[in-house]
């Protein structure tokens, strides 16, 4: 006699749904524990100094960052000293690039003449690989936060700019005509028509830029910094602390994953109209 037969039908379906979700989750992520286990066994067997087993990496990460006092959310001073400056640069640079990129992009997208003058410069600017500007920024800004933020802004702005131009340029003619006929002012057109219409494109650019921002944050900190996650990376390397180094790598993977997931969550909310409209047609 199974307990389910005595349950009310609603409860049964709920349980089934939960079971279904659980099994769906299992079919999706089963490979991860398998890979981690295989990695653990393999590295223990090989006993290479360069490839510490995952358990050791986790222990080192805990020791480095998460064994702090409860008042600091268990974060150690090292963690606070490394994460906060890095994240501040990351988000600061990204925010500046967003404002500049979207603002300039919409202006260029809406004005054919302006775009005509600026287009070749944009094409050239985005063709320069951003790290190539690091040596210049080092000379101009010296080593430090300014140089790092400049690197992030320069590297991240292009996908935002290009996509904003594209999105603003191809707003449906009839949308603009409707706005004109009903006498909408400039600000209203910008915020209620152009930006929403260009939204899907702009978000595509923003998503690309998040990944780039992490790369450039690490790069700029590796090149010259006295704090931050990238600094931690070069510090562990110099001290031949391989478990520590792997911890930083894993941490950066998690950071990228979390950033991407939160970004997608925001995008889903903001652009839900777009997703659902596309499903219906």
């Amino acid at each position, binding site marked *: 006699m199974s307990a389910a037969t005595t349950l009310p039908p609603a409860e049964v379906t709920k349980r089934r749904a939960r079971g279904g979700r659980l099994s769906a989750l299992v*079919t*999706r*992520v*089963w*490979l*991860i524990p398998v*890979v981690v286990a295989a990695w653990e066994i393999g590295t223990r067997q090989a006993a290479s100094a*360069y490839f510490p087993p995952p358990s050791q990496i986790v222990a080192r990460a805990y020791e480095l960052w998460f064994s702090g006092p409860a008042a600091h959310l268990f974060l150690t001073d090292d963690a606070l000293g490394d994460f906060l400056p890095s994240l501040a640069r990351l988000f600061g640079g990204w925010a500046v690039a967003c404002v500049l990129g979207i603002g300039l992009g919409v202006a260029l997208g809406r004005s054919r*003449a302006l775009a*005509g*003058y*600026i*287009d*070749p*410069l944009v*094409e*050239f*600017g*985005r*063709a*320069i*690989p*951003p*790290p*190539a*500007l*690091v*040596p*210049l920024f*080092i*000379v*101009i800004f010296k080593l430090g936060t300014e140089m790092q933020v400049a690197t992030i802004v320069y*590297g991240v702005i292009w996908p935002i700019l290009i996509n904003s131009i594209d999105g603003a340029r191809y707003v449906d003619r009839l949308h603009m005509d409707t706005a004109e006929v009903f006498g909408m002012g400039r600000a209203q057109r910008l915020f209620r028509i152009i930006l929403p219409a260009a939204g899907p494109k702009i978000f595509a650019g923003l998503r690309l830029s998040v*990944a780039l921002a*992490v*790369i450039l944050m*690490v*790069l700029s900190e*590796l*090149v010259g910094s006295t704090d931050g996650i*990238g600094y931690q*990376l*070069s510090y*562990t*390397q110099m001290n*031949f602390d*391989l478990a520590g*180094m*792997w911890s*930083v*790598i894993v941490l*950066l*993977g998690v*950071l*990228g*994953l979390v*950033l*991407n997931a939160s970004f997608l969550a925001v995008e889903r909310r903001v652009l839900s109209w777009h997703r659902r409209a596309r499903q219906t047609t």
Partner: protein
Amino acid sequence: MIRRRVARGATGVAVLLIAAELAGRTGLVDTSLLPLMSTVLARAAELVADPAFLADVWGTLIVWAAGLLIAVVIAVPLGTLLGSLPRAETATRPLVEFLRPIPSVALLPLITLLIPDDSAIKMTAVVYAAAWPLLVNTMYGLRDVDPIAKETMRSFGFGRLAVLARVSLPSAAPFVLTGVRLATAVGLIVAVSAELITGGTAGVGAFMIRAGAGFRTDLVLAATLWAGVLGLVANALLLELQRRAFRWHAATSGELS
């Protein structure tokens, strides 16, 4: 229309160059930090005839191209396999999602410890970075194949491999090429980053580090100009290739107009 675009573009470039020159000449910016535009352009012209610089450019190109090639050879077949086996795709997806965001720049310190050879270090980083867009786009392209087309082929009695060769791969090809374009851009970024970080002796990045250490911003900027030209040429070549190879795709998606 086109002539006007060219005229405007040329005006824009000229205005920027002249403004930069004037800013230096009037003392608005410190020329010891940012040299005059004319100086930079002159240096850039000289660099073309500088064998040391050309060797550096060549070094970067080799790392970049070889890295891309290896990434294509690894990632495209793997993406094809995973993309045509839905179960394998669902199983590996979380793994891909976790490995992909690890910036390959962050792997450089580790790779440096593991591999002694300078250009092999850089190449490994380029391969890692370039493989992800290739893999993901290939998988996506294969998943996106019109099921009706596949079923039509099956209904005529074609086997799995024939369907793959005649329907799935051709229709996924544009996505793969998009992956190649993304990989090319990321590959150049990582190649130059690696040169900056590993402090190797060859490559445009190494050239810039040396010039920067000697406060020769004129040389740094001149090299930056050439790096931009490199990026422009690569992108133009790939766009042209994409256009020639997939006229039909561009025409249906309206990307060309």
